[in-house]
């Protein structure tokens, strides 16, 4: 039904898709697998008409198509249900289902007809209990998902793309989701299903396509019989060699440094529960897990940016959970969304670097700009930020250099603990090696580092110790050298503790 050949999509600095093939048959559930950054999201957006491919062809029912925008794709019969549901909370169920193609005449909405049609679609999905007039904001996540699906059906979709639909659902709600999917496929609708959970793919999937580094590495594997080991090695076997700096030769058994962070029974309802661990000076501790496993949320809670219960002890002193206080006491965070959460894009590299330690550059509020600039220049040189002009607006830098500016921010003042959330996201391969070296260097200077990355090899290669997270709990803790990628992926996807 849908055949994609040699799809290439180039973004500034990144080749997100580098020759992807996909063929989806009518009435099947086609699963898309791949690690984070493999190109799944980009591929979905190409299908949904959000991105236009630079090369390659898309055929739908034997005809070449080239959707120029989301509306075009919808007209072709493609519907996409995104990970973050794109519903308007303030509107009713009916209004959401028919948003953009309301039952209306001359601009006047015919509510009765709309509600009737909405009821029909909801019944077809097996959810007559969702009332068409309810405001969507008051529905549970599972019901919202049904509304999203109803919207797809209302367009008479022939192909429905679901991006991690089970991520927000409880166990029994997933069963209902599968029931709906089976019903749709029995009517000839094709479903492209994206999930990290292998057991779901075994249960609902027909065939599997695996993406890796923007390329298809396997097309149309049988979802039920392909051995897990084969799937995992397809996902992980890589062309790109990661270059990690060597670990310092830690004396076995002997503590490398004093404890800078101790976390006891940290719990944040809905994100993670009862998490305890410690980070010592000079040590890099990695958190491995899927999106939604609680890894970023743990960093936020330690930093004081997310409400939580439990104890956080920094250098022997229990801290009150406030960002302002924690920064003063020597914590620093390089957040996941560099541009949205860390950088002042219009401002200079200097202003960005000194943002976290302004009082250190001021007497009675008066900034010593000469010293500020000298320090920024020194750090820019030390971290090799290019171009080496600290007065440039930070938005003109590449992703890797922007990340270095964020790291540089926390090299000022006396930091004891750095929290790094996806430090290499959106950074090209060459710059990654440099960042790894910088991070290791930080640890060697006696800073404790807590690292989160969705790329398992990165956690294993960079960290000294690894905590494996699944659904908000730590399921394994151990020396990074005793783990390998297969083992960790198996743990985070199948929940098998080693």
């Amino acid at each position: 039904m849908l055949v994609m050949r040699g799809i290439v999509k180039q973004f500034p600095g990144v080749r997100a898709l580098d020759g992807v093939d996909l063929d989806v048959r009518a009435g099947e559930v086609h699963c898309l697998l791949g690690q984070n950054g493999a190109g799944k999201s980009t591929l979905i957006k190409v299908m949904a008409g959000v991105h236009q491919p630079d090369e390659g062809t898309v055929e739908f029912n034997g005809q070449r198509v080239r959707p120029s925008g989301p509306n075009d794709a919808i007209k072709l019969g493609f519907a996409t249900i995104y990970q973050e549901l794109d519903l308007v909370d303030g509107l009713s169920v009916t209004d959401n289902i028919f948003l953009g193609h309301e039952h209306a005449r001359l601009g006047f909405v015919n509510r009765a007809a709309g509600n009737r049609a909405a009821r029909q679609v909801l019944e077809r999905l097996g959810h007559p209990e969702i009332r068409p007039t309810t405001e969507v904001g008051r529905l549970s996540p599972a019901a919202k998902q049904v509304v999203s699906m109803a919207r797809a059906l209302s367009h008479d979709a022939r192909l429905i793309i679901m991006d991690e639909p089970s991520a927000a659902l409880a166990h029994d709600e997933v069963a209902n989701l599968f029931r709906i999917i089976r019903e749709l496929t029995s009517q000839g609708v094709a479903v492209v299903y994206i999930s990290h959970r292998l057991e779901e793919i075994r249960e609902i999937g027909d065939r599997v396509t695996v993406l890796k580094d923007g390329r298809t590495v396997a097309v149309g594997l049988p979802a039920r019989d392909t051995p897990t080991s084969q799937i995992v090695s397809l996902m992980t076997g890589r062309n790109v060699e990661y270059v990690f700096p060597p670990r310092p030769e830690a004396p076995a058994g002997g503590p490398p440094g004093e404890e800078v962070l101790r976390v006891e029974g940290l719990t944040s309802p809905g994100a993670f529960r009862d998490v305890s661990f410690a980070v010592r000076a000079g040590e890099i501790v990695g958190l491995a897990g899927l999106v939604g496993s609680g890894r970023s949320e743990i960093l936020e809670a330690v930093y004081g940016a997310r409400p939580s219960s439990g104890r956080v002890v920094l250098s022997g002193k229990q801290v009150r959970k406030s960002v302002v206080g924690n920064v003063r006491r020597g914590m620093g965070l390089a957040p996941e969304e560099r541009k949205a959460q860390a950088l002042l894009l219009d401002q200079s590299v200097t202003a960005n670097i000194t943002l976290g330690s302004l009082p250190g550059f001021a007497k009675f509020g008066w900034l010593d700009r000469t010293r500020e600039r000298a320090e920024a220049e020194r750090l820019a040189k030390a971290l090799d930020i290019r171009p080496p002009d600290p007065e440039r607006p930070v938005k003109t830098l590449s992703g890797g250099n922007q990340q270095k500016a964020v790291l540089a921010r926390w090299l000022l003042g006396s930091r004891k603990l750095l929290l790094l959330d996806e430090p290499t996201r959106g950074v090209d391969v060459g710059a990654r090696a440099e960042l790894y070296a910088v991070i290791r260097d930080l640890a060697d200077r006696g800073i404790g580092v807590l690292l989160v990355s969705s790329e398992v090899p990165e956690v294993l290669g960079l960290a000294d110790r690894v905590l494996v997270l699944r659904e908000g709990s730590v399921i394994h803790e151990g020396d990074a050298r005793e783990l390998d990628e297969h083992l960790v992926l198996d743990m985070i996807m199948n929940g098998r503790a080693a």
Partner: protein
Amino acid sequence: MSDPTKPRSDTGPPGIALPGRAGGNPLGRLTEAGHMGLLVAIALLVVVGLVTKPAAFATTSNLVSILSLAATIGVITVGATFVIIGGGIDLSVGAIMALASVWATTVATQEFGPVVMAICAILVGTGTGLVNGLLIAYGRLVPFIATLAMLVAARGLAQRMSDRKTQLIQPENSAIVELSTTRVLGVPLLVYIFALVVALGWVLLNRTTFGRRTYAVGGNPEAARLAGIDVRRHTMLLYALSGLCCGIAAVLIMARTTTGSSTHGDLYELDAIAAVIIGGTLLTGGRGTIIGSILGLLIFTLITNLFILNGLNTSDQLIAKGLIIVVAVLLQRRNLKERAP
């Protein structure tokens, strides 16, 4: 660690030695690009004045009256620039000024003499601004709503205190009025006060941690928070600062009109916001300059002056001002696009 003896001159980018560029000012490039257009506009208006009313326009007394007119709103505009760069908006400035002027000229306050009257106006302004700040930063009200409520309430309170009567400054307190009548080098004192506020505002914005944080809080509040800046406290201080400027403005309007009145400063908030916008400050925060705002205000004041000199309709004047706002913003948007990477 650092070398404080390092000469300043070599901190610019290597190889791009631009003569006259504002050293290493992080916003040097922006200020220059934005201000050229404003200066051209002012030059054009001056030419219009010279051509249409050569005898009346280019006199000292006319120029002094332009600056005196600009002084009151000018002081308010400095505060408004901070608030808007910090990502907020203050609609209550005119009303706060009116309240401060009334409070400072009540019979009870006037008994204590001119110094206490001035201090009273400034304290009332700062206090009212602080209430705005508390409501917005800690009460989590949207700035538009909190300051709209304050606009209505402060003016109401001013009416109640003054019983809707204009309160004259008593002869024994004429020291306040002398701020507008005493001239140094032919220029009234209140213009010097205006210049001083602008200078202090510029220093505060460009040379202190407070200013740097203002850009950070307005440009990316989440990044500011995660960098350890107390965003709420800073937001509160921004509104208090705006209130402080309103208090100073109240003293100036008392000097100019010899009265305190609940009708002072009607619609000043619109002129102040318009001046800030014309000056190139983004309403979304994070970018802007004091100098730009003052130039924007001068453009507005010059237009008023030219219309009065030429005996033109005040309605046409409003239309012209409306057009200027739109044109200024359209031009700035084009500038922004050109500068984007």
